[in-house]
């Protein structure tokens, strides 16, 4: 649910990074935070993590400048991926305008990817949204491990598990090194802003 302030000419959108625990959602936000300068990024908020596991959410506000005369403010959130935090994930998803699904390329995480993707669909439906309609980008993370001895999923396998019918835009990523992180962010921001702007006929972009 975007917030459109016509008096200050501002648009606020919420983009949520979703996906299984340890998939690399927080790593994406940290990379973005460290790479952006202060004019663009706000303060990053990370709530009470246990080790490096997210318990509630992370928040990174970004100021993306002007689009057709409107100041675009984007809030990036991550959900806690671990299965037990189901209720919290649903809360964080409230009012979402765009979703990045971060899938884990580790073969042992295959079921967790699928479980988390189904959980996303279910939660969107409960908010009256659908995965087909909402701006969505898939990120296949930890691609660096494809060249290691650790068993990983091929991109084709990830596609057939998660993106067979949807045909969403996908990016391969290595979030720890920043590979694919900004490509993902750019695509989801563009689609989300376009989606919100179009809905409200703020201008035709």
């Amino acid at each position, binding site marked *: *649910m*975007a*917030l*459109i*302030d*016509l*008096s200050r000419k501002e648009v*606020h959108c*919420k983009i949520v990074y979703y996906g299984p625990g340890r998939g690399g959602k927080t790593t994406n936000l940290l990379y973005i935070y460290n790479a952006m300068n202060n004019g663009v990024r*706000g*303060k990053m*908020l990370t*709530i009470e993590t246990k080790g490096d596991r997210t318990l*509630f*959410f992370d*928040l990174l*506000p970004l100021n993306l400048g002007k689009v057709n005369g409107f100041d675009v403010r984007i*809030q990036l*959130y991550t959900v806690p991926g671990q299965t037990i935090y189901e*209720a*919290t994930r649903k*809360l*964080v998803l*409230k*009012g*979402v305008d765009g979703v990045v699904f971060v899938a884990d390329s580790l073969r042992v995480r295959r079921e967790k990817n699928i479980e988390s993707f189904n959980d996303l669909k279910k939660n969107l439906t409960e*908010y*009256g*949204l659908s995965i087909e309609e909402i701006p969505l980008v898939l990120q296949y993370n930890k691609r660096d491990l494809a060249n290691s001895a650790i068993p990983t999923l091929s991109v084709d396998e990830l596609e057939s598990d998660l993106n067979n019918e949807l045909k969403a835009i996908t990016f391969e990523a290595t979030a720890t090194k920043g590979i694919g992180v900004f490509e993902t962010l750019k695509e989801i921001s563009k689609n989300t802003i376009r989606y*919100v702007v179009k*809905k*409200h006929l703020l201008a035709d972009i």
Partner: protein
Amino acid sequence: MNDLVLTAPVLEEARQQIENALIKAGVHTVLLIDDAGNVVANCGQDARRFDTTALAALAAANFGATSEIARLIGEDDFSLLFHKGKKDSIHFARVGPRLILVTIFGDEVALGLVRLRVSQLTKAIEKIFGLDS
């Protein structure tokens, strides 16, 4: 879920009401936020002193979590929430289905007064935003 579109007259009217009901009663900060964690309006002198973006995100999440707890124990909703600090206290109230009014005040302001004013104010704000009916 529909997006929230704010216009200058609506915001101005809401701010005016908040000023009259709470700021003039000695409350130092009032934030009107939506349940996605966006700041709709902020009033009072302190609003610029702290990170309102983070405050709004946490307040929305906190309120959402509390509503969920209410549901788990078979309550419809706790329509308000209050935390008392040593110096300052914070009071949250639902405004219509989508907005939350966050009131921060020092110990010189009585909780009873805040509760009374907030309950009158929420009705007024619901009307301004067309959330009544």
